[in-house]
């Protein structure tokens, strides 16, 4: 009789141990599921946040500025050329005329 009671207590202890293990496995699954969800969130967030819109806008502004500077340089060159050509136009016409007529035209 005493032996039976002791055996029952030990079996109970075994059951408690099995239950604790089952709960532990369940908790482990939850930990892994939670980690998986958080990992996906981290990746999705990175994909969403990686638009670098500020950087793009800044670069577009810089490029626009560089283009304006280049065009300004050419416009300045055109202005200088026009001034020189205005001054030299008559001399060039004389030169062409001399060639066309074959004699110096007065």
């Amino acid at each position, binding site marked *: 009789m005493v032996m039976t009671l002791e055996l029952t207590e030990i079996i109970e202890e075994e059951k408690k141990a099995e239950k604790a293990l089952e709960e532990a496995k369940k908790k482990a699954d939850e930990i892994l599921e939670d980690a998986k969800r958080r990992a996906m969130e981290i*990746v999705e967030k990175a994909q969403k946040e990686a638009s670098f819109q500020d950087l793009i806008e800044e670069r577009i502004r810089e490029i626009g500025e*560089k283009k304006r500077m280049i065009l300004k340089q050419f416009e300045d060159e055109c202005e200088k050329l026009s001034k020189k050509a205005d001054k030299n*136009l008559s001399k*060039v016409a004389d030169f062409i005329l001399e060639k*066309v007529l074959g004699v110096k*035209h007065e």
Partner: protein
Amino acid sequence: MSKEELKTYIRSKADEEVKKIIGEAENTAKKMIEEAEIKAVQIKDEKLKKIKKEMDEKEKAGLSFAKMDGRKKVMDVKEEFLKRALDEVEKRLKGFSSSKMSEKYQEILTDLTVEAVSNIDSKEVKISANKNDLDTLRKNLQAIRSIISKMKNSEVDIELDNKPIDTIGGVIIYSKDGKQIYNNTFEARLSRTFEESKGKLLTMLFEE
């Protein structure tokens, strides 16, 4: 082993196993998060690299187009002034050829005719010119014949084409068989001068 000792053993084994299961799960979870964080950094780095590359290409293309536009503007200015120079010459030529009877014009017309005939390898040539130049040439035809005959060391039969052509001035010479032609009108000479001297004209126009 007593009953209590056995129960304690079972409990401690179970606790140990639970700790192991939870510990392994936590370690795996930690690795998953770490890997996700590394992947997130990689995603950002790759995107940043891609954007930088795209923007560099955009800049290169944009600046290249801007330079092309600028160069075109410079070319347009140069072409505009070349055209203005030619317009000016044409204007002066018209003024000059309207002073038909001036001695200088007659000299030039004779020179143009002699030069053109000397470039035709024929003993029979025909001269085309505008109405006023035909009149002038008609008056000086004998002198022109004489100059050319002396130059070529033989007689050349020169005939005027009485049908006037549309030109500012100068002549077109044809061999009578029509196989040779020399255009010595002002327009043709202007065009030749322009083609031959375009580089020099540009230099002269835009020098200090």
